[in-house]
């Protein structure tokens, strides 16, 4: 589809909302979401669901405007506040909220009651087929699996031909294979129906699996937006970095720049540890932050040789904590570094506190962020 059409279908939100009894929290964001999957990513309590509720008309902003497909949903200057039932949106709740007294078919047909019986049947059959739930038509929601219920909820919302689709952590209860199949179907549907889809999640894997665009929200504000790779793989802010799963974040100073090799050397604050990192636009002496995922650090009991990794740090194990089937090792190597290990690795290397070890960190596992 052409550019102007895409823009005409965009959802534009510029709202603020406070809550009685919580003086510190204010939802205040301004964003335009084009057709396609827009991930809203952030910790719980960030205001993600409130944002969806405002778009759906289930909750009213204190001020601002919400416009979708060229229609004003909400505009304080003209005192417009369209009722939920008149907004023409699709909303899949975290709890799904399927009607327990209706069959799968009854649920899907609920939102298209105004159509003629023939048209209703045609549309319902079509959507049941594209979500592969035709065989469940006569069953009640209680009698089908979680993944199937998920598909029914999606089908019920999409059959109404919404101008915006809101998904509130819709896959939270599903296992990975079921999830990815449903996501494929959703993406296929979205190819044919170019509407903005807002997909709320706090799951990092989903962001990379799905998103064309991601919006990081925390404490009611937008922290960052862009493609998942731009925002999460190389985060510029520390909050985003923590959300993206950097267990190790250090203050650092650039000590030398090797423009020819595409690398730099940074010294971690309060230590003599020097790391080789990817080259970013920075001068010698500039302060930065380095983020390293605990799962990206290798651990060896003897000094390794013949490695491609450029950072090899001697250190001492301070503690080993078992978390489910994973071990979190804290290693003192001038700074305290978290390292994730398997149980098998801990046992075969006979790791224990006070053991001397070597930490190996690839250059490209060091992610640079702006300081503070």
């Amino acid at each position, binding site marked *: 589809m052409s550019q102007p059409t895409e823009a005409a279908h965009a959802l534009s939100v510029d709202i603020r909302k406070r809550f009685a009894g919580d003086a510190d929290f204010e939802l205040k964001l301004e964003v335009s979401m084009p057709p396609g999957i827009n991930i809203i990513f952030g910790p719980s309590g960030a205001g993600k669901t409130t944002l969806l509720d405002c778009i*759906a008309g*289930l909750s009213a902003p204190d001020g601002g405007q919400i416009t979708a497909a060229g229609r004003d949903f909400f505009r304080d200057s003209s005192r417009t506040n369209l009722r*939920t039932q008149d907004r023409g949106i699709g909303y899949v*709740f975290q709890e799904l909220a399927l009607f327990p007294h209706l069959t799968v078919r009854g649920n899907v047909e*609920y939102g298209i*009651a105004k159509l003629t019986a023939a048209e209703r049947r045609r549309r319902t059959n079509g959507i049941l087929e594209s979500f592969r739930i035709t065989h469940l038509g006569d069953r009640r929601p209680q009698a089908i699996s979680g993944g199937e219920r998920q598909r029914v909820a999606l089908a019920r*919302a999409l059959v109404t031909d919404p101008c915006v689709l809101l998904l509130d952590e819709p896959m939270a209860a599903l296992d990975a294979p079921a999830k990815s199949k449903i996501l494929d179907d959703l993406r296929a549907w979205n190819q044919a129906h170019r509407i903005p889809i807002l997909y709320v999640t706090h799951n990092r894997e989903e962001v990379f699996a799905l998103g064309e665009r991601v919006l990081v929200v925390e404490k009611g504000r937008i922290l960052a937006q862009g493609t998942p790779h731009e925002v999460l793989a190389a985060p510029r802010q520390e909050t985003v970095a923590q959300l993206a799963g950097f267990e190790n974040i250090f203050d650092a100073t650039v000590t030398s720049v090797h423009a020819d090799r595409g690398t730099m050397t940074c010294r971690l604050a309060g230590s003599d540890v020097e790391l080789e990192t990817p080259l970013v636009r920075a001068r010698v002496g500039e302060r930065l932050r380095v983020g390293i995922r605990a799962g990206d650090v290798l651990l060896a009991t003897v000094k390794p040789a013949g490695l491609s990794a450029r950072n090899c740090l001697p250190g001492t194990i301070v503690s080993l904590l078992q978390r489910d089937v994973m071990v979190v090792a804290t290693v003192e190597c001038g700074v305290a570094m978290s390292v994730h290990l398997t149980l098998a690795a801990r046992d075969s290397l006979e790791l224990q506190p006070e053991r001397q070890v070597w930490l190996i960190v690839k250059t490209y596992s060091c992610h640079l962020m702006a300081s503070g």
Partner: protein
Amino acid sequence: MDWQAFWLTVRLAVLVAALLLVMGVPIAYWITYARWRGKFLLEAVVALPMVLPPTVLGFYVLVALGPRSPLGQVWQSLTGHTLAFTFEGLLLGSILYSFPFAVQPFAAAFSSVDAKLLAASATLGASRFRTFARVILPLSVPGIVTGLVLSFAHTMGEFGVVLMVGGNIPGVTRTVSIDIYDRVQALDYGAANHTALLLLAISFAVLSLVYGLNRKVWAPWPGR
């Protein structure tokens, strides 16, 4: 066995239940969903008959029905006779007396419908009325049935209000419980026992029917 009194009582109880269905559902809906600060006042008024002695309720209904009250005067100008000591007057008193037994189960059923279902219905384009008719009402059937059965059974056995408002006119206001009272006053324990036993059996049968048919029904017994 006074069958005239029996059928009169059944007719009264069925009418009370039917009228409470018509009046109680909108009131219960309003009590459940209205966001009005003074709502508790209405809730208290609806619940009053549960705690008031039937004679107090009956006394005020009698006064309200009498020829000196506005209601009594309107009725008299329309029909030519007073409401007091008539079947219609008895019906009115009984409806007030059984009001909480219908409205409270209705309201409890409405409020136990998951709010997310109502939100889902609205996002699917349904008006409030359609949401009520297609989601709230079908999911509240057990509560509605409970309210109807309780008000039916409650009316079957009412005594104080009948005595105050209806008196004891055979075929008009003489109900089963009045009949039993009369027999006991006349020391005719055998006949009183017949009627009392029938009333007991009916009440038991009706309640077990409801609880048997629907395990999820609003109940004084906690669920398992």
